[in-house]
């Protein structure tokens, strides 16, 4: 590879940010001052290139410290990692949280997505912008869903420095958001994760039973509440036994695609190629979804334990937790939990004295919904643009670093704990025949008690909404998030199961239930959904890259129109939508039109 670097030099601070992550450079080939030794030997090439996967952490290091990534900083990082600057520039410009242009040290992300829009984010944004104008040292950026929908409207302040400071304001008022942006260090502590769980403390809960009950910082407390009995059970029955239990339990993935977990694990475990990897998908950027955050904030050790069991089952010794960049508290809690588990021999070379080695590395996303797509996530970890790969080959065969990989959602993984402690038959008896076990639902919008609800599969939409206290004047419910579909208020008897929603012509997706009352202007909402997908498309394939734009344009045209006036544009929306569904590379383009289509067909949005 011809590596070419420009003349831009990093500032001392930028250099320090990179060196804190990578250690000091050893030779001039890596960006140190030239020494006599450099004249005699060259280091770099292959050995250094294998550190490409540190590109994303490196970009975070600079962006966290300085607030943006200059040419000099990017070039220096590239020199350290033997990455071509053109590629690194392509990666840096892919993520919404990075900037390659100078900007103020503080960025205030104000959510303008569905739940927040319904809760008045437009006024919040206007108010915040009026107060934090030019020269305030704060850049106000409109953000897709921040995963705090139960406390909408939400804002997240990030102040670059050493260390970087973050503050969440939700529910946000102009005053509180401005305060969070101007002094994130002294902003009030967020409410406990348990407040997002209206059923907290209910002894019948299986997945959320510890949220609000245990101290999320204490490993001992976790153990005192049944922690690590599932891992002991896993060691007792061996990897094949774990896979058998998970298969017999009928566990299917909770990340949206509903793939049988046992089959995925079996396929990964049986691959002759090594090493195997385990990846936990904690990217959670689907608008309306916040369940994984609450689990990680409220019961972080459960995920550490579940990942250990999954890794043991598939024969992986290394696991990655890909955690959404906008979740500072979940990041702190998981970092702490992983550190404690490592210190106590629950991660590392010899877990529980069983001779099994496993460790977890956390990777932070940087603002890209598409990185939740499993293969885009691999690219992101590897230091490439978060573009989905074509399948086949599937991840179980060629996943992370081209090796067999099992990738699972947070909620999927924590289900493994009750499966092992109660046994597959007892678990499979919960729910329905094909949708077994408990399910988490993220309820927000026009309800009195928004939050995460745990119900056995099979409860109806109406029962869930009653629990959450649905308000009068319900106009529509968005099931499954932005990639899901709308249903009408007279369809509340839909059973919340994979088969039940499919039969009703909709989807359960990742478990989003967003209720909208009749004060919410439907066309604006649809426009926001279209805008979301246009913004989040990776841009790789034509149907999605251009199709999402053409759809948004058509929705803009008909925002105030109905009936015959809208007919031509609705035909256009349908034709483009059909091609996107059929011909896009990945699930983003394939589902981007679903919600709008359902609003037209089921709600009669433009009649």
């Amino acid at each position: 590879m011809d590596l070419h670097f420009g003349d831009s030099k990093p500032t001392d601070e930028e250099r320090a940010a990179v060196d804190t992550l990578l250690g000091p450079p050893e030779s001039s080939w890596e960006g140190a001052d030239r020494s006599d030794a450099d004249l005699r030997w060259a280091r770099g090439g292959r050995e250094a290139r294998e550190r490409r996967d540190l590109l994303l952490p490196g970009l975070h290091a600079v962006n966290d410290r300085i607030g943006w990534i200059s040419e000099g900083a990017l070039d220096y990082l590239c020199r350290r990692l033997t990455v071509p600057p053109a590629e690194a520039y392509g990666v840096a410009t892919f993520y919404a949280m990075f900037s390659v242009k100078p900007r103020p040290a503080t960025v205030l992300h104000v959510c303008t997505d569905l739940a927040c829009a319904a809760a008045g984010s437009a006024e919040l944004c206007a108010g915040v912008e009026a107060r934090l104008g030019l020269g305030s040292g704060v850049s106000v950026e409109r953000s897709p869903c921040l995963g705090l929908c139960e406390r909408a409207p939400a804002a997240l302040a990030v102040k670059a420095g050493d260390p970087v400071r973050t503050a969440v304001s939700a529910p946000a008022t102009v005053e509180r958001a401005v305060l969070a942006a101007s002094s994130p260090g002294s902003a009030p502590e967020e409410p406990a994760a348990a407040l997002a769980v209206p059923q907290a403390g209910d002894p019948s809960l299986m997945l959320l039973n510890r949220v609000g009950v245990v101290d999320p910082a204490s490993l001992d407390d976790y153990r005192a509440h049944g922690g690590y009995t599932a891992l002991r059970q896993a060691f007792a029955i061996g990897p094949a036994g774990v896979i058998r239990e998970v298969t017999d339990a009928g566990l299917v993935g909770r990340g949206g695609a509903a793939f049988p977990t046992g089959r995925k694990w079996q396929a990964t475990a049986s691959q002759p190629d090594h090493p195997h990897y385990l990846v936990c998908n904690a990217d959670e950027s689907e608008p309306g979804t916040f369940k994984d955050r609450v689990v990680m904030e409220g019961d972080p050790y459960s995920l550490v334990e579940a990942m250990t069991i999954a890794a043991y089952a598939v024969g992986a010794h290394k696991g990655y937790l890909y955690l959404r960049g906008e979740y500072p508290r979940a990041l702190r809690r998981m970092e702490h939990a992983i550190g404690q588990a490592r210190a106590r021999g629950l991660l590392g070379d010899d877990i529980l004295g069983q001779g099994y080695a496993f460790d977890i590395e956390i990777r932070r996303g940087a603002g890209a919904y598409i990185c939740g797509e499993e293969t885009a996530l691999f690219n992101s970890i590897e230091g490439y643009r978060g573009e989905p790969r074509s399948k086949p080959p599937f991840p179980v065969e060629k996943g992370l670093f081209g090796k067999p990989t099992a990738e699972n959602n947070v909620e999927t993984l924590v289900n493994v704990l009750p499966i092992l402690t109660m046994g597959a038959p007892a678990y499979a008896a919960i729910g329905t025949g094909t949708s077994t076990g408990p399910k988490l639902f993220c309820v927000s919008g026009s309800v009195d008690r928004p939050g995460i609800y745990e119900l056995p599969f099979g409860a109806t939409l109406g029962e869930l909404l009653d629990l959450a206290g649905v308000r009068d004047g319900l106009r529509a419910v968005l099931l499954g998030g932005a990639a899901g579909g709308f249903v009408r208020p007279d369809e509340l008897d839909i059973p919340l199961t994979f088969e039940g929603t499919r039969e009703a012509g909709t989807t359960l997706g990742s478990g989003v239930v967003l209720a909208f009352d009749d004060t919410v202007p439907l066309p604006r909402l649809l426009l926001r959904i279209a805008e979301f997908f246009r913004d989040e498309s990776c841009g790789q394939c034509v149907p999605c890259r251009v199709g999402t734009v053409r759809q948004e344009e058509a929705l803009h045209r008909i925002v105030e129109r109905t009936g015959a006036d809208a007919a031509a544009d609705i035909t256009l929306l349908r034709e483009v939508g059909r091609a996107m569904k059929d011909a896009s590379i990945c699930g983003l383009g394939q589902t981007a039109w679903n919600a709008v289509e359902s609003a037209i067909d089921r709600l009669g949005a433009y009649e």
Partner: protein
Amino acid sequence: MTVTSLGIPRRLLEFTIDGAPVRAPEGSTILDACRSAGKDVPTLCQGDTLTPKNACRVCVVEVEGARTLVPACSRKAEAGMEVRTDTERARHSRKVVLELLASSVDLSTTPEVAGWLKEYEAKPDRFGPDAARLDEEPRIDNDLYVRDYDKCILCYKCVDACGDQWQNTFAISVVGRGFDARIAVEHDGPLTDSACVYCGNCIEVCPTGALSFKSEFDMRAAGTWDESAQTETTTVCAYCGVGCNLTLHVQDNEIVKVTSPHDNPVTHGNLCIKGRFGYQHVQNRD
């Protein structure tokens, strides 16, 4: 006696295309099989010397049992597959994809697209006069070639040719995301500040004329570019001992550009700066 290695014998897969049984060697793509069976499937981002990124999606076909359409250019044929190349569903997607492309970029120098637009009855105008386009000025920052990204369909071929598939220079990448994604060099600067070594291999693979020889660009601007009046002569490069084949494109007794045969086992269509651009001395008649 020289022995030509034939490689490991490849198994033949049996499957059907449009109902007719076909056989193709293991490892072939559906497109390979279609072409040997004499079926025409349109392609844009596929290139004979590169692994396709399957990004344009004009080559989609229907495979029995698959939830979505599949890209013929990159999906490997499997035994027992039932492939349909010309269903209403596949034709609809191709039509819409052509409309989406033609509404957002300038396809005037993309061969074959005009014919496909007609064949699929694509109407790019129906997205209205305000449909977002690229609308960028050509970038002319060096004497060898011009980057006119208004014509770029983001097929990734130049990225792959400059990167790990051929040149290993990695001067080109895709930057930004979604509709704002663009081809650029580092820091989106001029080519002269970049890692580019001016091999021109990106021009060789660009299907749309977004990357072109300065000579061709200037002649097109002046209205003097006339492919029908050009002759092509393939010869051997005289600069070094590698022995690359050069194809000289000559118009009015002047070399107007240099390419290399893609089926040449030495170059596979690739050259270096000397072979590709170093022809001025030939035309120096003083």
